[in-house]
């Protein structure tokens, strides 16, 4: 169950967004690593991350977002979830930039999920991802959910120096509009 106060981000078309979450679940089930530590940046109330907790391969989830109003919603979701799954999750109320710099969070995850706003990844996050071998020996998979295609193209140019695009697909979340949501998986080169 997800909870939304008026001051947190909510996908405008949750019905369609559920298909993206399903696709991510399926991709993680194919990951060879038996116990995955997952980090989600720009995580909002945990719309993606909370739906990965019941996967057998999920060992831990850290979800982060700078909007302080997200945390109570995230924790409310955990409170109504099966305890065994809820105890895998933790929320950190920090920006993506702070997470990768001050909290060195890339060091401790196998899977990184990013769902940035339309402007794309922050420069600091991009920089950290292009120096990922120095930052993390564990990180294997980057899941990028993009609502800003222009920004995705820019970010891709930097990411490709270190990451190989494994798969990408488009989802029309706003039918009738000139908009596309892109789901992409990257693996380390």
């Amino acid at each position, binding site marked *: 169950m997800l909870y939304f106060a*008026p001051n947190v981000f909510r996908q405008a078309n949750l019905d369609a967004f559920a298909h993206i979450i399903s696709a991510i679940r399926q991709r993680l089930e194919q990951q060879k690593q038996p116990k995955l530590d997952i980090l989600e940046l720009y995580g909002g109330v945990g719309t993606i991350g909370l739906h990965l907790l019941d996967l057998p391969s999920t060992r831990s989830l850290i979800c982060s977002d700078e909007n302080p109003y997200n945390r109570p919603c995230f924790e409310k979701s955990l409170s109504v979830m099966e305890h065994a799954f809820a105890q895998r999750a933790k929320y950190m109320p920090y920006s993506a930039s702070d997470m990768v710099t001050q909290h060195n969070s890339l060091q401790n995850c196998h899977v990184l999920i990013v769902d940035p706003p339309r402007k794309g990844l922050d420069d600091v996050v991009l920089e950290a991802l292009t120096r990922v071998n120095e930052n993390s020996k564990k990180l294997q998979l980057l899941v990028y959910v993009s609502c800003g295609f222009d920004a995705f193209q820019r970010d891709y140019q930097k990411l490709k120096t270190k990451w190989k695009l494994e798969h990408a697909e488009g989802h029309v979340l706003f039918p009738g509009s000139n908009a596309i949501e892109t789901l992409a998986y990257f693996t380390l080169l």
Partner: protein
Amino acid sequence: MANPRSSDRSNNRKRKITVSQSDDEPASSLSSTQVRNARKRRSKQKKRLQDAGVTVNQRNASNAVDPSTQFLKNPKAAPICQAAKRFFTEQCGLEVFSIYQHGQKVGWRTVSKLPVRSTTRDKSEDNSSKSKPKHRVMIGMFQPQSHQLGSSPSNNSTTPDYPAHHASINSVTRTVALACQEMGIGAYNERTGTGFCRYIAMNVERATGHVQLTLIWNDAPYNFTQQELESLQKPPPKLSANQKKRKRQKLQKQQQQQQQQQQQQQREHLQDGKEDSSSLVGRQQLERLVSHLLKLSTSDDTITKDFTLHSLWVHYNASWKHSNAIFDIHTTDPKSWCHIYGPETIAEQLTLPPCPTSIKKAKPREENN
């Protein structure tokens, strides 16, 4: 009592001049610099359009199309979808880039933030009744690249229905616009920074269709006690026809007085720099609007049967100029969000479909339709 420090500050401010927009609009409090900058912005915009070879008529014609309906016939044919396909297959080396569109093509939008503005009544409309106000409250989307409210080609009302919006959003928009009109609520004016109701934000609880409504209010936070909040939620006593008539007359009189008071306060604001001079009027308007909306939401009236609030919030955002943000996210004031009625959060259960997409690289799945 006015803060002496703020008075000192205001005395040091640049002298403001009064600019009258028209006979119907209240005088604005723009400094000479703001007037000059506004003129420069208008001139720049005009030049940009001329350079692009766009006439005003062409711009208006293209703006008349609701951008969320442009590619309804075949959403996957939208230019950005085609550009993405080219990018991934030609530049990224993917063999295939599939595009999926699930669910309904209309009524899918369950989140919306819409501006509340005032519009002058058309001369062709029936103006025989002098009791009708010259301005109407309008709620809708801005036309692309502008802060002009558009009207739906299919519906010329001040609150057009948008096909992409969930039916509950269209219903709440209509009801709030009418409520603002009836209760004499001042819609926000971007040029003058006056008026209290600047936006409404809506979230639909998909299971019930009930709406979490937030009024974005152009003022500093008011200190409502718990008792005051509860009294706003109490249904008003049932009145006879005569009592209703007297109440209506009293309300109209109050509204006129408040408008005069507001204009007087604006003048004082210019002269004295008082920070909170309009708060009393704003608070009275908010109380009236909230009470009325809650009454409509809980009434059995068939006219408002589609209007059911899940909850009601007020967000105070008094920022003006240099900010187009709907929510004042930079404020550190915990009172900037005020929960008035209903549960604090909307609960959403996602039904995860059996995975519709596949990442199997050997045999890419065919696109669905």
